[in-house]
């Protein structure tokens, strides 16, 4: 197990390195640069600015400096757009916010989704099943860019109950709408997945055996059916966790949360190379780590899997 983890982490290093190099060149290919503006800068001024950020160096040198700064100083460079801050600052400020929303949305989506799915499967073909399924499909059909406006119109404008956006130190009123907007579509998916998986498990031989032994339904479900049911769900939850963090882009923009999503989109539009790269690396690393955790979780859920 330990050697497996070490091996996976070692593979992660070249993976992330390739990600950095590929992103580095892809970003440079995009037309326009951080200092392309409606008011083209006089050549001398542009030269001064490029010299300050090392953009006058050959590309290989820029890449080398970038990598050595990360490895030696854990410094992801200055932002070209936000002159008073560097990439480390921007991530340190935005990531905890995105992580808060993301984790809450992840929890909401998995807990409610699994609960809906399990209930629907146990009461298969009853009104509970139909309600749960329609709720799941409804939630899935409403992506966050539809949920956002619906929520704001309802809770902010008509009911006047919740603030229409902002972070405000993470007060709960400010968290509700972004978390709902972020979680509903995943919630629907998880419910659907859990339901079909549970139905399959409930029809399998070992459950029949457990029932034949006279075990109460509760024990059958919790002790015997739950783990195998969750196996396909868990493999889906890994990517979902990454999605809710990166997918918070829309929610960050729409609810002005101050999260990383705004900085990410903004950096792509303004060609703020360093911020764009920094956030890409962060998301990439996160994906690698979460995938590893998901794989390890398999072993717990399925005794057949051994590393």
């Amino acid at each position, binding site marked *: 197990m330990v050697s497996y983890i070490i091996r996976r982490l070692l593979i992660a290093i070249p993976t992330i390195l390739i990600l950095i190099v590929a992103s580095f060149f892809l970003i440079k290919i*995009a*037309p*326009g*640069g951080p*200092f*392309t*503006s*409606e*008011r*083209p*800068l*006089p050549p*001398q*001024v542009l030269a*001064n*600015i490029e*010299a*300050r950020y090392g953009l006058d160096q050959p590309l290989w040198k820029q890449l080398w400096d970038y990598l050595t700064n990360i490895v030696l100083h854990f410094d992801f460079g*200055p932002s070209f*757009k*936000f*002159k*008073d*801050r*560097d990439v480390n600052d*921007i991530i340190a*400020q*935005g990531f905890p916010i995105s992580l808060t929303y993301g984790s809450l949305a992840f929890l909401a989506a998995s807990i409610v989704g699994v609960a809906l799915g399990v209930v629907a499967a146990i009461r298969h073909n009853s009104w509970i099943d139909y309600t749960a399924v329609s709720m799941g499909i409804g939630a899935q059909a409403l992506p966050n860019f539809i949920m956002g*406006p619906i929520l*704001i*119109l309802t809770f*902010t*404008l008509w009911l*006047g109950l919740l*603030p*229409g*956006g*902002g*972070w405000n130190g993470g007060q709960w009123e400010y968290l509700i709408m972004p978390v709902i907007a972020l979680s509903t579509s995943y919630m629907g998916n998880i419910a659907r997945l859990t339901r079909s998986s549970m139905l399959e498990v409930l029809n399998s031989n070992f459950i029949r055996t457990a029932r034949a032994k006279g075990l109460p339904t509760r024990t059958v479900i919790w002790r015997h059916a739950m783990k195998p049911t969750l196996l396909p769900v868990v493999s889906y939850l890994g990517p979902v966790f990454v999605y809710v963090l990166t997918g918070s882009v829309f929610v*960050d*923009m*729409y*609810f*002005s*949360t*101050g*999260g990383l999503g*705004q*900085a990410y989109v*903004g950096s792509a*539009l*303004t*060609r703020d190379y360093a911020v764009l790269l920094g956030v890409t690396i962060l998301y990439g690393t996160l994906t690698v780590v979460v995938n590893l955790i998901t794989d390890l979780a398999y072993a717990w859920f399925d005794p057949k899997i051994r590393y």
Partner: protein
Amino acid sequence: MKHMSKLALATLLSTTMLTGAAIAESHVPEGVTLAEDQTFTYRQLDEFSSLDPQVVEDVDGANVVRDLFEGLMNQDAEGNLVPGVATGYEASEDKMTYTFNLREDAKWSNGDPVTANDFVYAWRRAVDPELASPYQWFMELMSIENAAEIIAGDMAPEELGVKAVDDYTFEVQLTAPLPYFPQMTTHATTFPAPQSVIEEHGDEWTRPENIVSNGAYVLTEHLPNERSVRERNEMYWDNENTVIDRVVALVINDENVALTRYLAGELDQTDIPAGQYPSLKEEYPEQAVSFPRLCNYYYTFNLSDSGPEAFQDVNVRKALALAVDRDIITERVMQGGQPPAYTFTPAAVAGFEPPQLEWAGMEQSERDQMAKDLLAEAGYGPDNPLEFEMVYNTSEAHEKVAVALSQMWKQKLGVQATLANMEWKVFLEERGNQNFELARGAWCGDYNEASTFLDLLDSDSGYNDGKFSNGRVDELLEQAKTSDERAPLYTEVEQILYEEMPVIPIYHYAGVYMNDTDLGGWPVDNVEQNWYSKNLYKIAE
């Protein structure tokens, strides 16, 4: 009073635009009951690039910097120059030397006095290649002695033509008698900077915990992309006349969300999304406001060698410009009270007298007929239709305008214009490299003078993406840089632009806002929209 009379004298001597400058004793009209809570909350489109006065380059940032710092001169509600840190100034006879007299009671928020040395430091900093400010060009435009050489790295920043004669006398040496030089001292780039604080904290000096500023407010909170808060600066020399205690800027990228939050009472002010002004005006007549701004919206022909052959013919250019029904664009598409444009320079620009152009007075049907005749003369017709591509940067509003234009040309002239939209930076790159046929353009004035617009069409201008070149225009613009009688020069340039039609003016921008009824003192008559929170107030409801 000595200083004020100096100002009055200088005003009289320097330019007509300065007349009427005076200090408002109190900006709250009599009979107004002020609200208990003097907090002003407004929507900010995007996170600002910086709060460093010498570095800031965006409008949102400049709005904050104008509250945090105070330069030599300020603008009043009409855009006239009024004293800031300087109580007035004197220009030498040749108008190459300006002497500003600084008030002795101006203080930094840490209690230190604001002196001429703070300006010397800031102005040298602005041109220093090491700081690499994106607004270095502004200092060069101000014609300050040696600015260009320092930016080019040929001289040390200490050689800049600025001097602290004593603690309260700041002297500037120019290379040309630039008539609108004093106006330019209201721009953030020229604001003073606290040397000791910058040296102590480096790039982090603008953080709430470090910043020291000399304006009416100090920065107390900043969560990038979410909000920034500024509060009354007790050290500010005119603190007793400041009414607003706290200013909150909320970053809201989506204008429709901002409007919803305004309607829910979270904001005192927000922008009105394109097309929604008429309905909001009907529902909230006292809150929806529209007023002219110093910005234009146009399409530029590519007149360089890479441009289409057809556009070299002035008749083609004129035909396309004439066939645009501007009233439909402003009244049916934009719907925000934008004035239709027949000149490149907005009529709202101070001291600009638009020429009496024949097409401005015509009926649209007359213009259409003229357009048809001109295009036929150029050899285009049903058998040989004119075809070209028009590009604009991706945006719903720009798309609507482009569709309307192409339809007008198609229906009236049988012209086949294909639309292409591009992401902003790609668009700028392509337009800047003359990889286009007809391209959208827009420009907002850097200062309130026609040259800020017309310089775009100077042959040597780096902003002249259409590569229009006309010797007479260049000559007139050169003269305007030093002349006292500039209005006729600008008028003549506009006359030439009508005859040559290098660009198609479409409309001039309007500021279209929802302003809460309890917000007082918003300077709707300041066409540059340089507003100061210290001049606003909240009325008791």
